[in-house]
């Protein structure tokens, strides 16, 4: 059990951020992240030790968030797969870091301003690195719909972020 505590310590930030990108509310995101770890503990026997723990853990969190959103809006799909994204490490000075934080808040607000279906597709494509086909399978949505939703979501994001007409 101590080993699981260590896993929680190591992955709690990334799991929390999965929830936060979906929900945009800190308290709720903390609760769901906590619940995600508890569920993961119950399902530890189903975890394939040959695969990295992070993507599996984040998949559970994403599924929880999708279910949570579904209770508030009519959604009916589950995340099945997530690839481990390469870690990005950067060294930057304080000012650059401050600018990055400000920029991140703007981006995050723009994502949260999307309709939840668009938000989920953006999350799956850009943060879980799923292909169009994988998103289509996960959401049980036709491939053409995935593409059109994704492109429309990006268009909305670009308009919010860059403040000019992206076409």
């Amino acid at each position, binding site marked *: 059990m101590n080993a699981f505590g260590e896993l*929680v*310590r190591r992955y709690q930030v990334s799991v929390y951020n999965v929830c936060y990108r979906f929900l945009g509310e800190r308290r709720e995101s*903390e609760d769901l992240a906590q619940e995600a770890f508890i569920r993961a503990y119950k399902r530890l026997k189903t975890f394939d030790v040959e695969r990295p723990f992070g993507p599996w853990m984040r998949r559970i969190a994403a599924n929880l968030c999708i279910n949570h959103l579904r209770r508030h809006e009519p959604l009916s799909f589950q995340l099945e797969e997530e690839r481990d994204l390469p870690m990005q490490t950067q060294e930057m000075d304080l000012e650059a870091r401050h600018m990055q934080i400000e920029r991140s808040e703007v981006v995050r607000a723009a994502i949260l301003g999307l309709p939840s279906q668009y938000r989920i597709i953006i999350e799956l494509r850009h943060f879980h690195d799923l292909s169009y086909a994988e998103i289509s399978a996960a959401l049980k949505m036709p491939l053409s719909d995935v593409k059109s939703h994704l492109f429309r979501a990006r268009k909305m994001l670009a308009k919010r972020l860059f403040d000019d007409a992206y076409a």
Partner: protein
Amino acid sequence: MMPMHEDYHLDETVLHGYLDDVLDPTQRSEVEAHIAGCPLCSHRLQELGELFLSLTSLADVPLERDLVPSVMSIIRQRKRYFPVLKFAIATQILTVGFLFIWPHMSAAIDEIIASPLTTRFTAETIGVFTNVSRIWSVVLDALTGFLTRGLINLRNVPSFSWPVLDEWLVVVVMVVIWLVGNGLLLRVTQSDRRSRLHQDVVE
């Protein structure tokens, strides 16, 4: 042939496909060749690329509280109470199952009692449970009807010859098991809730 706008510009799906890396090598070459000679498409691609970069470089939000203590506390709590919870749920199911299903099994029960393989003790035990379920059915009828009809039904309850202690003992034991099961369920639920609230206060 690449999909184009009427003014020979790249279609939006092509631009997205290029950055999503879903185009085949031939298509990618065509896109790159067009981009090299078309300022408008080059600008559109650059904007889209900036959007992609904004998303992929999104920094993590720091976590304000450490989730480890609360997660581990809840896991320990649930591990401690899970056997109790299983027992409590089992008592509920058995009690309800017995009270509602047993009366519908009278034909099968009669056969069991009449079977030469059934020992006297087994037959008497089955008889006790059958009488208990009959008592329960009568009480249910009395409760679901109107008050006067219920009183009439109660007055018409067939009297049992003594010893009836066996039947009433079974009823009392079942009621006690039912109450204990409910109490345990309530306790487990409240403990879980208290544990979560405690963690909230501590944090």
